[in-house]
């Protein structure tokens, strides 16, 4: 109890909204509006494919809707950790469950290359190539990477989402970046 009370809680203007959303549909609608874009983008970054990301985003919000009446958290920080945890788990489960992942990746890369043929725009390291490298990481490592670099979360917030200590998150990120550096540096095209 002492540890819980001593934990610093980030105060936001939406804490009351989270409490109200447990019992009021309108309040949950407002939370939905606040979080839909963030969760969708997180899913796109984790799954690369828009339609798959829409499916997983749907699954996340329906899970939230079912669990909201019994949600124990009281602050927006609690809600954010909860919804990102659900999103991370859903994305990981989707990746593990489907063997379509590799196919999705191949399709996406093919589409990108087709577009590049018609365009003058070209990055030395583009998103499909980076995603192909990220794909080689463990799902949990991918989650940490996405939360850090696409969702701009700090170590404490990521730790809450993935259920680890902030120090562990820091070490994981360090190792992930070294691994990516090695993979991308050794084979910039990403075709191993």
């Amino acid at each position, binding site marked *: 109890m002492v540890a819980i009370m001593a934990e610093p809680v980030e105060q936001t203007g939406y804490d009351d909204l989270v409490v109200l959303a447990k*019992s009021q*549909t309108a309040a*949950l*609608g407002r939370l*939905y*509006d606040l979080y*839909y*874009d963030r969760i*969708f*983008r997180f899913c*796109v*970054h984790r799954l690369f494919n*828009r339609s798959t990301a*829409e499916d997983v*985003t*749907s699954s996340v*919000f*329906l*899970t*939230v*809707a*079912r*669990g*909201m*009446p*019994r949600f124990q958290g009281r602050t927006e920080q609690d809600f954010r950790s909860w919804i990102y*945890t*659900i999103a991370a*788990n*859903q994305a*990981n*489960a989707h990746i*593990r*469950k489907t063997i379509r992942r590799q196919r999705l990746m191949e399709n996406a890369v093919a589409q990108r290359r087709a577009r590049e043929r018609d365009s003058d725009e070209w*990055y030395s*390291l*583009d*998103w499909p190539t*980076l995603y192909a490298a990220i794909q080689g990481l463990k799902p949990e490592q991918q989650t940490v990477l996405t939360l850090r*670099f*696409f969702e701009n979360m700090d170590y404490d917030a990521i730790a809450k989402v993935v259920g680890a200590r902030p120090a562990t998150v820091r070490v994981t*990120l360090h190792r992930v*970046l070294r691994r*990516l*550096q090695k993979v*991308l*540096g050794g084979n*910039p095209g990403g075709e191993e």
Partner: protein
Amino acid sequence: MFENERDFRKLVAGMETNDEPSAAHRERLRRQTLQTFEQARARDVSVKTSGRNGVHTPPHPVWKLAIAAAVLIGASTAVWMGLDFAGGQPTFERIRAASESTPWLLAVATRYSDGDVGTDTYWSNLAAKEVYVMAEDEGVVGYSYGAGQMKLAYSPRLKTLVVSELPRTGPFGVESAYNFVQAFAVLAAKDDVVVERSTGEREGRPVWVYAIDAAPSVMRIEGKEVAGVRMTALADPRTKRVVAAGVEYKSPGGALLAREDWVMNYPQAGPSSIYDVGVPRTTRVFDTRQGYRGTPGDVPTPISTPSPTSGFRLEPLKMELPRAMFRGTPVDGRTPNLEKPRRDPRPAFLAPAGTTNVARGRPVSSSDLEPLTGSLDQITDGDKEATEGNAVELGPRPQYITIDLLEPCEVYAVVIWHQHRWPRVYYDVAVQVCDDPSFKTGVRTVFNNDADDSLGLGAGRDLHYTETYEGKLIDGKSTQGRYVRCYSNGNTHDELNHYIEVEVYGRPMKSIQSN
């Protein structure tokens, strides 16, 4: 490429990822989310209203009116039907007559004494006056009170069926009652026994309650004298049959020595002989009345019973098993009360013909709002292979999953594959069957190896077991219910809980009743 975290952040920031959400999807999902929330909130309110931990919330005034109206309708219907009611409730003789108007009585009795829990299943052929008692140790005893007048006792350890005369005395003696309803009626008919009549509620439905206090002639439980027995029978006002019962055995000082909980059903068909309730047809038979009569492989003479009214028969359960992921079953010295691993394949499990996996494709819910990996529908998708990503992972500490069979079923077996990729032991495994989605009333526990009562369901006496490709087959004891709940509390490898597949073998009550 990039040297550090700051470089990588710049790199990512400059990338085109096409992550603009679609307005159409946003709006569609918004509607679905709010609709789902309203449904969940309605369910949550309904669960809270029905009371938690057996404490019932006082009904809302509107509900009180509805209940009063229902009582009035019930009372007027009873008067209209012209039954021999005393205050709207018939005498127990009428209950007995209605209960024995069907050919079969199937009763499951759970005994509780001094921390011990045991379950026996009784098949009573009311027409032919025969009883088959199936004990937990797979022993079977048959009593024939009709023309046969004999007792058959099968010992699974000795693999022998012993035929003898009916005992003269005791609860299954020649002159004894041969089923609970009859025993209650016989005691209730004695001059010095008063039958208390009242009404009550069971699983949310009104029941008539009959209770008697009787003094048994000579009875001992674990060496202690039984001075008094209180028997309670609950009858369904609609069918007039006994649906549940309880027995309390008391010492001369009034202390409770043991108790039994009974649940009764009245199937139209039952086993045609003792060989239909688990006795192998090739077992040797020893007849104490005539001397040695058979040898292994001989065709024994079954207990004489009339032909069943329908084609009821037991047959081996057909089950597809996944690939074995490891050879043998290493003994884990760290786990107490561990079941000795079998060297051979699991023996066939007998279930009534027509038994299927009634859990296939059925919805699953969980105490863990969000599985760590996988989705709950994988638990009933029929895929039992222990491949990467095929297990649903629930969080640490005690967790449960609940399978909604969508209709009341008679459950003969529950087979669980937690994670058979490695020889793990899952702790505190318990399986319950219930008709109440909140598992507050009418809960039947068919398996429990939680010896120290970590789950709070009561200390279980079943053994821990090692996960194998065969899964753990748990006898469902013909328990009836719509929901099946499985508990676990981590495993020997980590604190998490896993499920690859759960199968529930049974038959829908509708199909049983129509037969």
